[in-house]
């Protein structure tokens, strides 16, 4: 088992009630507001891996970019070791030595005119980790390439980015981030282009960095099974809002929010093949509908137009946060109007997952 049980309780990086709106020009040149992230709380502890999952366009990248100080927040704050940091300030420069972001698109994030060696050496130099002699620096780069399984490293060190496949480029980007020796890594689908057989090695590498070096990682992914393999906690995002979070096993085995359940039901699971009782997830004829607009999101719970359990109150108001003894929390009217629920939760949310096992 790769995920660890209890993280050390010192938040390294924290988003507190962060909101990010984008102005875009709409019809007739009128400005519209895209509500990409709304009032999100997210904590990363030392030596902890948190997976951030949710559908395309739900705001995962935007939240990671806020954490990386890549965008200013519209509201709320980002704290590093308890201290508020803002983009452009002095504190922000030091920040980038501790917090490294791996961007979703490995094509855009490497200097395309420069060889792999230069791209990585530059990161070493900028953050004061470069060795004095040229031979030693070469050795540093080779070691980083080997760590991400780009072997033989000599074969890759003098390549230009366009000479590499998508998966190879993603590994160069990871190697470059590791060159900085960050305490926090924000990985936006960092291994999505890797072949499956190599993906596992990267997941194991990230788990090792967490266990041995105390690295904290925010792991954005569409691969729920992979998230379960790696992460200590999972956060689920829907239409700009975090709707559920908790210890990985709890969220996967006992999802509380109907969207989390839809996500799990939709994820590939070959076990369904062997166990006819589970039924094929392809059998459902009902269409789960379209993702909502973030310019004029549905009122109340944003999931209500697609939710099989939607009721009147769901259309009227956004549900408060309900906390569970398992360490999970969710925003859903099925679990009450918010406030702490420390008695046994209703089993509405557990129904399907329980049937599965």
């Amino acid at each position, binding site marked *: 088992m790769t995920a660890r049980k209890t993280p050390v309780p010192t938040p390294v990086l924290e988003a507190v009630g962060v909101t990010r709106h984008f102005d875009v020009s709409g019809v007739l040149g009128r400005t519209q507001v895209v509500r990409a992230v709304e009032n999100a709380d997210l904590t990363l502890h030392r030596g902890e891996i948190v997976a951030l999952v949710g559908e395309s366009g739900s705001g995962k990248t935007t939240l990671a970019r806020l954490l990386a100080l890549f965008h200013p927040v519209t509201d709320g704050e980002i704290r590093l070791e308890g201290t508020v940091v803002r983009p452009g300030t002095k504190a922000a420069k030091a920040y980038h030595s501790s917090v490294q972001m791996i961007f979703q698109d490995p094509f855009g994030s490497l200097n395309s005119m420069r060889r792999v060696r230069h791209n990585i050496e530059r990161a070493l130099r900028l953050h004061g980790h470069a060795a004095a002699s040229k031979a030693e620096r070469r050795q540093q780069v080779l070691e980083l390439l080997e760590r991400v399984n780009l072997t033989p490293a000599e074969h890759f060190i003098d390549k230009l980015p366009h000479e590499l496949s998508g998966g190879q480029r993603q590994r160069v980007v990871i190697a470059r981030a590791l060159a900085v020796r960050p305490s926090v890594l924000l990985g936006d689908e960092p291994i999505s282009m890797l072949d499956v057989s190599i993906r*596992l090695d990267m997941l194991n590498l990230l788990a090792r960095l967490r266990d041995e070096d105390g690295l904290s990682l925010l792991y954005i992914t569409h691969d729920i099974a992979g998230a*379960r393999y790696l992460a200590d906690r999972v956060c689920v995002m829907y239409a700009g809002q975090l709707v559920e979070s908790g210890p990985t096993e709890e969220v996967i085995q006992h999802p509380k929010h109907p969207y989390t359940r839809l996500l799990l039901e*939709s994820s590939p699971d070959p076990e369904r*093949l062997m166990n006819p009782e589970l039924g094929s997830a392809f*059998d459902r004829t009902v269409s789960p509908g*379209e993702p909502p607009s973030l310019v004029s999101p549905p009122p109340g719970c944003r999931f209500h137009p697609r939710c099989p359990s939607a009721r009147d109150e769901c259309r009227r108001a956004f549900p408060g946060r309900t906390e569970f003894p398992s360490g999970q929390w969710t925003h859903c009217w099925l679990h009450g109007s918010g406030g702490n629920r420390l008695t046994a939760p209703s089993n509405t949310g557990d129904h399907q997952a329980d049937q599965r096992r």
Partner: protein
Amino acid sequence: MNDSPRNDAPRDEVLLEVRNLTVEYVQPAPEPGVVACRDLTFDLHRGEILGVAGESGCGKSSLITALTRLQRMPAVTTDGEIWLHRDGGPPVDLVRLSERALRRLRWSEIAIVMQSAMDALNPVMRLGAQFADALREHHRGMNKKAAWARAAELVAMVGISPDRLRAYPHELSGGMRQRASIALALACEPALVVMDEPTTAVDVVMQRQILSQVLHMRARLGFAVVFVTHDLSLLLELADRIAIMYAGRVVEMGAARDLYSDPQHPYTRGLRDSFPPLFAPRQELHGIPGSPPSLTNPPPGCAFHPRCARRFEPCDDRTPLLMPRGGGHVACHLHSTAGNDAGPVPKEMSL
């Protein structure tokens, strides 16, 4: 009709017979060609979903473009036959068919769905007009009104409201565009639909939605599908049979269930074990050591031997042939009986 869309299509009648198909990327002399598909032989039945899985660069897309004759230079089909059986007509060999005859088969017998819907949809044409064009090309005499009405039925089948027919592709979401391109591929009721990573760019909820619709439409229309992806875990649930490709060859082929529960080839086993489970107990997993080979310079013998934990004496220089085993086929010396392998690799291939 059965409740499950997986099980109710006829499976006995052969639709496509692929024999010794070899596809090369011709290189400037004196370089030898890159062989992307080598000696592929398989049958596809009417209404069947055949999945093709394998790592990046193993030749999946090369197979798809060869099957549909959409390949471009430097890709060339250098050997083999692809027999398409048609209702009320003699079978035709797609490899040798004239461009003109081929054009008549495209869309009406064979359709393709690519990874990017933008490759299939015309960005400056309304969605409905694109359907109407495709329909009227194949049903001469169909009037415009009837064509738009049929288009409305088709998009409704993939969950798009018919009033979106007046939209341009860029006005639709990525998932809607992909579903529209699937509906377009099915417009002329082809017998065969080939799909190359049709859902790689969409999230799992949308993927499940699109593929459910494909299965329900298959149950209604009875077309067969060749579905290419690197995501074996998805394929196991979706396909009736699966072919596993490695370095341009099919190394194992069999029913999805058998491949999952009892893979015969060490590579298939490695691939299966590279997917962490969604619900089963967690344990540390290890991928397949090494990386997929380059086809410019594939390893001699069994191309998997540098990564294979079970490699033994014949593997380094004798290529195992695809042989029947159980209900399926496998190409591995662990299962080949004496005299059944392809013998030492000829010099020019082992370069």
